[in-house]
């Protein structure tokens, strides 16, 4: 690109980043105000910063427990769906099987299915298995979201690995499964990791299943838990701001560390290379 970045361009960037980040900035500034000030003024900066809201957010509701639940459910979902998906993606992209187009079509269709059309039989199934208010009770429905997503993204990564590697492994006498385990899978590891991050975020953010299946407060996940901070009589904006800041920090860290990978994973499905 021959376009050079000028002052105007950077000014635009600053405005853009400010607009995108504004809700976070404001929520953070609110979270350190003394609770009384939140309702009385629109001043940006408080003169008496306090951590009262944080204390309230952590004690009025089991926020740390929500985070633990979310972490456990998302991790389990990620591990399970990566295991199944890497097998499938490998077979579909690199092994001579029939019906590849059909399998990928099915996977893509499954990823487009609305969750609302799945929720009621899934609710009955999980209730029947006695898994309501447990981690597995969410992991099973989360497979509906994460498995198609993982297969779809992993397929692009597996496709990129040169095919000569398999041929030389075959010549050296490796069995097909050895080729997968010892040669292709390690090479695809960065792609698997990227897929893992995306699946983890998708599971972390899920709301509908978590809302219906884990209705006990001790088993709620972060998105549902946060939405329960509003009570019928008052909305404790201080608590909500502080809780939002607390649950956003892990995501900010994740994004800062892995931004390049996330972008490559997100765009892998959408552009031809």
């Amino acid at each position, binding site marked *: 690109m*021959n*376009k050079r*970045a000028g002052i105007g*361009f*950077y000014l635009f*960037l600053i405005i*853009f*980043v400010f607009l*995108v980040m504004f*809700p976070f900035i*404001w*929520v953070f500034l609110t979270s350190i105000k003394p609770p009384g000030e*939140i309702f009385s003024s629109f001043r940006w900066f408080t003169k008496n910063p306090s951590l009262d809201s944080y204390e309230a957010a952590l004690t009025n509701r089991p926020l740390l427990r929500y985070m633990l639940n979310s972490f456990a459910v998302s991790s389990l979902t990620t591990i399970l769906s990566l295991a*199944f998906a890497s*097998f*499938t993606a*490998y*077979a579909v*992209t690199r092994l*001579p*099987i029939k019906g590849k187009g059909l*399998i990928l079509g*099915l996977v893509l269709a*499954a990823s*487009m299915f*609305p969750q*609302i*059309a*799945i*929720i*009621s*039989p*899934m609710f009955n*199934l999980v209730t029947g298995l006695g898994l309501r208010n447990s981690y597995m009770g969410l992991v*099973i429905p989360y497979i*509906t979201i994460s*498995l*198609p997503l993982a297969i779809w993204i992993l397929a*692009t990564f597996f*496709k990129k690995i040169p095919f000569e590697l398999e041929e030389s492994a075959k010549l050296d006498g490796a*069995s*097909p499964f050895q080729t*997968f385990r010892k040669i292709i899978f390690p090479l695809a590891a960065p792609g698997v990791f990227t897929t893992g991050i995306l699946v983890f975020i998708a599971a972390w*953010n899920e*709301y*509908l299943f978590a809302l219906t299946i884990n209705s006990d407060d001790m088993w709620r996940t972060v998105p549902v838990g946060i*939405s329960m901070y509003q009570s019928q009589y008052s*909305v404790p*904006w201080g608590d909500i701001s502080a809780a*939002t800041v607390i*649950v*956003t920090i892990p*995501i900010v860290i994740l*994004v*800062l560390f892995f*931004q390049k990978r996330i*972008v490559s994973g997100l*765009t892998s499905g*959408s552009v031809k*290379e």
Partner: protein
Amino acid sequence: MKNKKKRGFQLSEKQLGYAMVIPSLILVIVVVLWPVAQSFYNSLFDYRLNDPARSQLMLSATIDLERYVDNHFYIEGQLDSLAGSADSEENAETVKEIQQDIESYHSELISDEEINTKVEKIDELLMNFTPVRDSELKYSKLDNDFAKDYREALESHSAELTAIAEASGDEQTSQAFQQTSDLLASTAGNILKSNFIGLENYGKYMKDQRMWKAMGNTAFFTVVSVAFELVLGLAVALLINRAFKGRGIIRASVLIPWAIPTAVAAMMWGFLYDGQSGIVAHYLEVLNVIPGASWLLSTSDGGMFSIILADVWKTTPYMALLLLAGLQTIPGSLYEASSVDGANKVQQFWRITLPLLKSSILVALLFRTLDAFRVFDLIYVLTGGGPANATESISVYAYKTLFAQQNFGEGSVLSVIVFLSVAVISFIYVKLIGSDLFAGRAK
């Protein structure tokens, strides 16, 4: 030798391929295809979790044996004592007739070997005050005609007893008759009609104002928010498609709104829009963009505006990212060549950028349109569908019917409608995009 034995267990590439695909396929079938099929099946029934007479899918008449056995146990005793305490010969006769009639229906019922075994088992459980949890044991299918006769007989006997109770002058006798009458009526309620109603629920929703309104809201929300996201996302992508310092900051700030849970974003915007302490509401009021600070969340137009703005904020960055990746695959030499030929920026955009970006745009639009059409968390948390259902999307309506009203039959109709709409939308896009969707995956 050892090596040879090992070879015997080796899978060929093809076998390995199928072995690797099958577990995922089974999972997809169990957790995605089966539930959707089940939802469709449920939608053909008048199926309500909170109504014991309709909490099962019953293709034919069914009897709730747990309650029936329990009620029947008392019927005999109560009728016996009524026959004894009746204040006239005529009434005692009626009671005896009722007793005989019920006994003949009951013996016909338990003449079925299977039902008889079940009744004995349930009897035993009830003696120990153990609730019957196994629905196989609890419910039994009945012949439709027999069920109808038995239910009607119980109902008419119940009416006879009520008539006696009302005519009786003695308070104690009257009460005893009324009690037994109620018992017979409740036993009649244990013999359940089939709740298969076919497409009746669909007919009902075709005429349902609220359904069409929810559909309209969803379509409006989808079209407007996706259109804004596309235009803004494309503008941002075009502007940052160049070398500059600080790409990392841009990328991170763009990813964070995408990465946080929608429910958390909705709570944040709920705060910013709040009529009393919301900063966005306050500034928009001061700038005279909106009539008053409370306009955002307490009026229909304001509610729609609020959810669209929040959605545009959350997903425009994602759109920009996808389009930027598409832009970067367009070779710069095309622009250089066209500049030499005298094309200006506008011509370059329409003749080079847009045509080459077409497939990226369509793929991004496909995923965004489907996401927007299924919108649930944002609306449910931010406005709850209100005010006065003005922002209710079809998914929110389906959720409320399913879980707030516990009406799984009607709720399933709504979720099947969402499913069919999504299928039509994806079909149209896939036709437009064609084989490009599979580019880079299958051979």
